[in-house]
């Protein structure tokens, strides 16, 4: 009897063990290893020694604060654009979608069936200086001959907005869809105008979805380097590009680790402060749908 009780108490631990172990060994431990690497000194030829050289953080920040700030700014603009573009779409599908809700949602998710790199590459192709869009505009004389979009900030931000938009639509849609229609009727019965109903009923109740969407958009957008690499130029380099270059071109592992750590600390602190307001389960559950 007591043996089976013990077995029952051990069951959840046995179930979580493999997944938990995998996450600890390949996610938690590496994070601490990265912290350790970031304070080492040396070079790739003679090897790196642990010297607790925290100055690398100061040097890294001094050298690359432009890219850091640019990444945060691009991330914020992208998030804002996604929010402005996605909210009406989510609203329309949730309240006017009728029987076609799932089909419309499916259309929003279509980009996910094409590789992220190919989608971005496809935009490079559409927007390139002699590409279909610009050569047409130039032929019609709508823009000057030397006009270009690639290698500018709008190209990178546009690419980011494009790539992360579905992450904003989905959680907002889920939030709106759960909203009880009776609440809207009640608002109308109480002579609430459409604007007032939206502002006082719909908008507050959709906030958890908006929060989740902001989270799911901002973090990957600020830390992305694919869009900046394919659509950007020398003046749109983001911190992700810097980290990638430090690892693979300069082979300066301590600096690359320090920069990664600053990025993670900045983003995770923001995220946890943000999630505290909501509770992590809510954010994750909305994110999972």
């Amino acid at each position, binding site marked *: 009897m007591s043996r089976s009780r013990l077995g029952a108490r051990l069951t959840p631990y046995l*179930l979580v063990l493999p997944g938990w172990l995998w996450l600890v060994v390949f996610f938690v431990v590496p994070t601490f290893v990265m912290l350790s690497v970031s304070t080492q000194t040396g070079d790739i030829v003679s090897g790196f020694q642990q010297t607790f050289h925290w100055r690398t953080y100061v040097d890294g920040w001094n050298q690359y604060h432009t890219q850091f700030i640019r990444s945060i700014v691009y991330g914020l603009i992208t998030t804002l654009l996604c929010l402005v573009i996605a909210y009406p779409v989510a609203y329309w599908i949730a309240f006017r979608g009728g029987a076609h809700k799932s089909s419309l949602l499916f259309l*929003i998710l279509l980009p996910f069936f094409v590789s992220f790199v190919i989608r971005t590459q496809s935009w490079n192709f559409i927007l390139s200086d002699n590409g279909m869009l610009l050569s047409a505009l130039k032929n019609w004389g709508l823009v000057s001959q030397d006009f270009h979009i690639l290698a500018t900030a709008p190209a990178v931000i546009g690419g980011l907005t494009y790539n992360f938009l579905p992450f904003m639509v989905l959680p907002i849609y889920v939030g709106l869809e759960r909203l009880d229609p009776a609440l809207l009727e009640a608002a109308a019965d109480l002579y609430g105008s459409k604007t007032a109903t939206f502002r006082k009923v719909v908008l507050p109740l959709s906030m958890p979805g908006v929060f989740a969407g902001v989270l799911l958009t901002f973090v990957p957008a600020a830390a992305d380097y694919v869009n900046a690499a394919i659509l950007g130029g020398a003046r749109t380099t983001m911190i992700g590009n810097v*980290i990638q270059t430090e690892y693979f071109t300069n082979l300066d592992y301590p600096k690359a680790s320090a920069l990664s750590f600053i990025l993670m600390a900045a983003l995770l602190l923001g995220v946890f402060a943000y999630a505290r307001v909501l509770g992590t389960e809510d954010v*994750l559950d909305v994110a999972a749908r």
Partner: protein
Amino acid sequence: MSTLISPQAGRQTTSRPDRAGRRPRRRWLLPLWSWLVIAWLASPIIVMIVFGFNDTTGKFNIRWQGFTLRWYRDLFTIPDLTQALENSLTIAVIVTVLATIMGTLLGVALGRYRFRGSGSINLLMFANIAAPEVVLGAALLSLFLTVGVPRGYWTIVIAQVMFSIAYVAVTVRARMAGLDPSLEEAARDLGAGPYATFFRVTLPSIMPGVLAGALLTCALSIDDFIITSFNAGNTVTFPLWVYGASRTGVPPQVNVMGTLIFMLGVLLALVGVVYNRRKV
């Protein structure tokens, strides 16, 4: 409801256009906006599909030069690209199996049992999902560099399983939360052992969640660029190959492969929808 509003109330508000009535004049604005967004989302996909049929001669597949099915016939004529696609597909299968098993077990435990430490596991998964990809990739690379593990096929598998487990777990946990515990109790009362209960009752009930998690993992795996590129060494996957080619010009075969993966994904998703409908 507006029929209940007295005409007087309606008149009082004519100065405010949004209260003018049940049918505002700009009703088309919302659908128009939404369809524009959908068109925008679809445009690079359409371009990808169309230019897979382009009868291009040079290295650059930029200008439309006529229709051809040549690239579908010559799909596997670039050995590196074929190898990259093969790597992507086999890695996706291995990662999906591993991550789905571990993620499902995690999700079942978190959704069914209350146990000490479950909060910290939730937090761990949340951090894993919320952490930026560059950092996940860089951290794992730091580990492999420090321990001296050569990067390649299996480090890609390790990396992709690491970022997929939490997604599966969250999906399954949500499904478990909606499951009536009395079903399992009934099975036990009828003499089913823990394994029979799990495989005959619990697993079939959470199957839609498990399948959704598996599909998501498969999609994430085939698509992943950032984390994979950090831990790939000399092994090349499909997105890695395309990224490398983007500087010199992407051959039409990439468009064709992208199109085929797209079609397969859409098909699988539709099958999933039909399957779920049937169940309900």
